[in-house]
């Protein structure tokens, strides 16, 4: 693997992917989280209100997953090939989960098999969150790559560490979803969601402690250093700790916007911690950014089309949707 520095265009596209992953995790994260919480109540009124709180946003949120996939495909084909090879089954489960969940939005309101579609919605949200977490967990563990191709088996991801991450992300998304519901709804849904935040936040903290310790041990084993070459990177875990304090404070002081905002900060801090930890690797310990980048001609062709036109358009309509549907949801 060449250790040369990535070009400016490669850096631009890495930044795009980073921002798109973050946007996806935060945005689809809250609506998947609401879907997970949907499975935790049988109350039809609460359920309808949960759906109403996310229905203008959820499909726009999933656009960011497509941005991530398409950008990887075009700008970092090696990573795309390795990722889809290694996570063939998780990606299959993710797509099936998103299909059934997406259809459930429209089909559950028709008077046929509503129980089936309600269950599809809750289970689909849960499975989508779980496999995303499991894939991240397996990535952190490191993926065997030979000659730019995944060299393991399709069930390698079924291991303790990825499964732990799957559960962790389910809890994280549920926390984000609970924060969203507190932000967007009035009582009784608001208090229902708020009363679940302390428990979820505690579980997320417990998961993060285990995950961080394991990741550090792994890193020391793989690179022979314990993060000391980039000490400024510790600022992100510190921000994460402050965010956790903010979540609990927001619940205690009954501030409707704090839990969601602070959980977003927590997710951003966790993402940046991972990014600093693994840089310059795009697939930890086997493929660097520079080695994964597409030829310069492809990157610059993409820059003039997708980079300067498509991305601003997506960002703009995302902003417009959130502006139009700002504030608390209205009871119908």
């Amino acid at each position, binding site marked *: 693997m060449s250790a040369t520095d990535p070009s400016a265009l490669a850096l631009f596209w890495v930044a795009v992917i980073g921002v798109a992953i973050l946007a996806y995790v935060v945005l689809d994260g809250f609506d998947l989280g609401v879907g997970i919480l949907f499975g935790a109540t049988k109350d039809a009124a609460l359920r*309808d209100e949960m*759906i*109403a709180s996310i*229905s*203008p946003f959820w499909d726009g949120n999933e656009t960011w997953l497509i941005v991530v996939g398409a950008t990887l495909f075009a700008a970092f084909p090696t990573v795309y*090939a390795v990722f*889809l*090879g*290694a996570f*063939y*089954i998780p990606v*299959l489960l993710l797509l*099936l989960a998103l*299909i*059934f969940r997406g*259809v459930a*939005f*429209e*089909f*559950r*309101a*028709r*008077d*046929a*098999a509503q129980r089936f579609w309600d269950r599809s919605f809750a289970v689909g949200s849960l499975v989508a969150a779980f496999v995303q977490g499991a894939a991240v967990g397996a990535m952190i563990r490191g993926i065997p790559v030979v000659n730019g*191709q*995944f*060299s*393991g*088996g*399709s069930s390698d991801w079924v291991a303790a560490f990825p499964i732990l991450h799957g559960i962790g992300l389910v809890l994280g998304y549920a926390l984000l979803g609970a924060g969203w519901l507190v932000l967007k709804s009035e009582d009784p849904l608001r208090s229902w969601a708020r009363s679940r935040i302390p428990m979820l936040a505690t579980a997320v903290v417990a998961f993060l402690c285990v995950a961080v310790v394991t990741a550090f041990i792994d890193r020391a084993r793989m690179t022979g250093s314990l993060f000391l070459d980039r000490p400024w990177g510790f600022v992100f875990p510190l921000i994460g700790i402050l965010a956790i304090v903010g979540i609990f404070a927001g619940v205690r002081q009954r501030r409707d916007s704090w839990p969601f905002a602070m959980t977003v900060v927590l997710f951003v801090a966790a993402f940046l911690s991972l990014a600093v930890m693994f840089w310059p690797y795009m697939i930890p310990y086997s493929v660097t950014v520079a080695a994964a980048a597409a030829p310069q001609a492809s990157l610059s062709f993409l820059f003039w089309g997708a980079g300067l036109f498509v991305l601003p358009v997506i960002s703009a309509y995302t902003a417009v949707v959130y502006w139009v*549907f700002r504030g608390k*949801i209205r009871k*119908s």
Partner: protein
Amino acid sequence: LETFPVEDRPPVIIPFFAFRIMVGMGLIMLAVSWFGSFLRWSGRLESTRWFLWVAFLSFPSGFIAVLAGWFTAEVGRQPWVVYGLLRTKDAVTPSLTTGDVLISLACYVIAYATIYSFGLFFIYRLLRDGPGRDASDRAKMTPARPLAVAMQSSTDEPR
């Protein structure tokens, strides 16, 4: 086609029929819409019973045309995945086993069979009930979605 070497030819029978089905569906849709316009112009659209049945029964034509067109393009492209550059057999992910592919194909078939069965049922019911559905149906709409907003703005005073 004979000018291409044998190893560069697709299985011709599939695109041959798929293309004709696609074009046939297009002709049916054209015929229905033009004849419907003609009936409308002569004021007999709502009283020509057999034509209304034809219009009702042709609701799957769009889906069939899209699927047939998809088969034409995808099978007709073989054995290339990128024409002239990359053959499908050279593009396969090395780590992928036949079992993995079989599982995923079966899953997608089951998923789409389930969803399309429900979808066709809902479309059929919508067509069977016909127009003039009253405002009580709005309760069944997913709120804050395009359809619900459209129905709301067409029946309510502006917000």
